């Protein structure tokens, strides 16, 4: 068991090739396990499911890869999958940008001015502890069933997270730094640009990443609850209604892949931004 320390970083110890190999190995093992289980289950798993009010026949609980591939091809060719992706991802992006902009600006404001923080406190606390999903019925009542409601819901949850991140980031600068800068002649605007903002950025980026994940979670459930075509949530709901398990699995896999892709993208942006910041001091 190797203890980890600062020197024991990503590039020391067993080489990166070994580590990637191990990762691929375990993923491959997982894939094989699933394939085997699906084959075994083909004959043995129950295919008659009680859905609370009625029985449903002919359900493949663990669809083998063949069915999955078939289903995936169908969904792609018919355009259903792609349009669902477009709709859901679009909502996520819009909601995310809206919420992030609002949250960061507000968070910076509350971080800088204590009075602003006290004013905003009850609101922030309220939104923080209300599960975003609980707001959905309210938003639906107020704004109807359209796109705006879902986007607003996503924006709400993202805003809370980014607000907290920006607030913490601004607050993370030690008082001593600010005093020293002040005593060296730096006015508030200059001190903010050169000291506070760079210190806050890591916190802000971390919260952006969390917010993105949260945005996806929110949109999926919002789409599940209020399902309209075309969206990934609706796809899942529909699949659950029949039920067509292979569609569900494809749908779930697609959502997972999208979330992963978005997260990796956010991560790379973060890395690039940190490198750029380090270079320009």
């Amino acid at each position, binding site marked *: *068991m*190797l*203890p*980890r*320390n*600062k020197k024991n970083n990503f590039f020391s*110890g*067993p080489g990166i090739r*070994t*580590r990637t190999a191990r990762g*691929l190995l*375990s*993923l491959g093992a*997982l894939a094989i396990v699933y394939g085997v289980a699906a084959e075994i289950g083909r004959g043995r798993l129950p295919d008659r*499911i009680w*859905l*609370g009010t009625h029985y449903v026949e002919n359900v493949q*609980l663990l669809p083998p890869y063949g069915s999955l591939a078939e289903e995936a091809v169908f969904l792609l060719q018919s355009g259903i999958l792609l349009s669902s992706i477009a709709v859901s991802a679009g909502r996520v992006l819009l909601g995310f940008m809206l919420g992030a902009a609002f949250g960061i600006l507000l968070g910076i404001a509350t971080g800088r001015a204590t*009075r602003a923080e*006290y*004013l*905003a*406190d*009850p*609101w922030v606390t*309220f939104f*923080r*502890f*209300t*599960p*975003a*999903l*609980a*707001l*959905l*019925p*309210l938003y639906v*009542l*107020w704004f109807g069933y359209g796109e705006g409601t879902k986007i607003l819901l996503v924006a709400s949850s993202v805003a809370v997270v980014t607000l907290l991140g920006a607030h913490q980031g601004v607050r993370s600068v030690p008082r001593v730094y600010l005093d020293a800068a002040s005593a060296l002649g730096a006015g508030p605007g200059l001190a903010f640009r050169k000291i506070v903002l760079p210190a806050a950025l890591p916190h802000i980026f971390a919260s952006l990443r969390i917010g993105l994940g949260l945005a*996806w*979670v929110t949109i*999926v*459930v919002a789409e*599940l*609850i*209020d399902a309209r075509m075309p969206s990934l*949530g609706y796809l*899942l*709901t529909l699949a*659950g209604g029949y039920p067509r*398990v292979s569609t569900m*699995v494809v*749908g*779930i896999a697609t*959502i*997972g*892949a999208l*979330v*992963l892709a978005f*997260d990796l993208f956010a991560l790379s942006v973060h890395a690039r931004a940190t490198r750029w910041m380090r270079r320009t001091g």
Partner: protein
Amino acid sequence: MERLKSQRLMLGLASLGAMVLSYTLLSHSHLLRPEIVPPAREIAVAFSELVVGTRPPPPMEGDVHAGHQMHSSDHVGTLLQQGVTLQGSLAITAARVLFGLAAGVPLGILLGLLMGFSRRADDYLHPIYVLLRSVPPLALITYVMLWLGHSEAHRLIPIVYAVAATMVIPAYHGARDVLGTYVLAARSLGARRWLLIRKVLVPAAGPTVLAGLRYAVAIAWMTAVGSEMLMSENGMGNLIVGGGLWASRTQTKADPAVVIVGIVALATAGWAMDALAKAGTARLTRWVR
């Protein structure tokens, strides 16, 4: 500086007061339909009905708010028929949250610590974890239902899953950031492996893990409410959406007063649990130091 502290309370109250005031004005101004912006009185009525669990006697003729009818909505009616009370629902949801935490937290921490301390485990498990984490727990709920039917387990699994996935990250980072010097120092003092783990590694990783706990609590609430809104006939999520299962979701007209009552109740409960977690964390970290 101390002037600001006393301002804290005043400004907070002022902010709340402004909101209540503007809300009351808005709801009484008849600018928007009362179905959308229920006056405070209706909210209070809904609240009391839901707490007590029964309908009050019908309103009298000379009612003050004769502009729009004071009536117990269908929403409340449906709920009351099912014997639902506000505190009952809240208790049910809270129970689910606590169960999810009790099962998910240790699971997540174990996994995270394992991956953090052992490079090997990390290599093998990390990709799988990333894959699993990418799937929103509630997306799985329809699939799980096929396996387990409409049972309590079916509702609880997403919560446990979400909590565990959330707790892995702080445990992982907490373990990784334990400086090698701690271990070297302890080793040079002759500490054996088990002692090392207990006395050095765990306390060092502890604070990060505990900080993640508060976040896990918030996620647990969100997942619990979501799973109730989708798949349950009791609990707060159900209360808000209007009772009844799955298919009838979008048909029921939700009463905004009930929704508001539900949201406020949820926010309060979530805040209370977080405050508990914060206090517990503070206590434990002091002890660890």
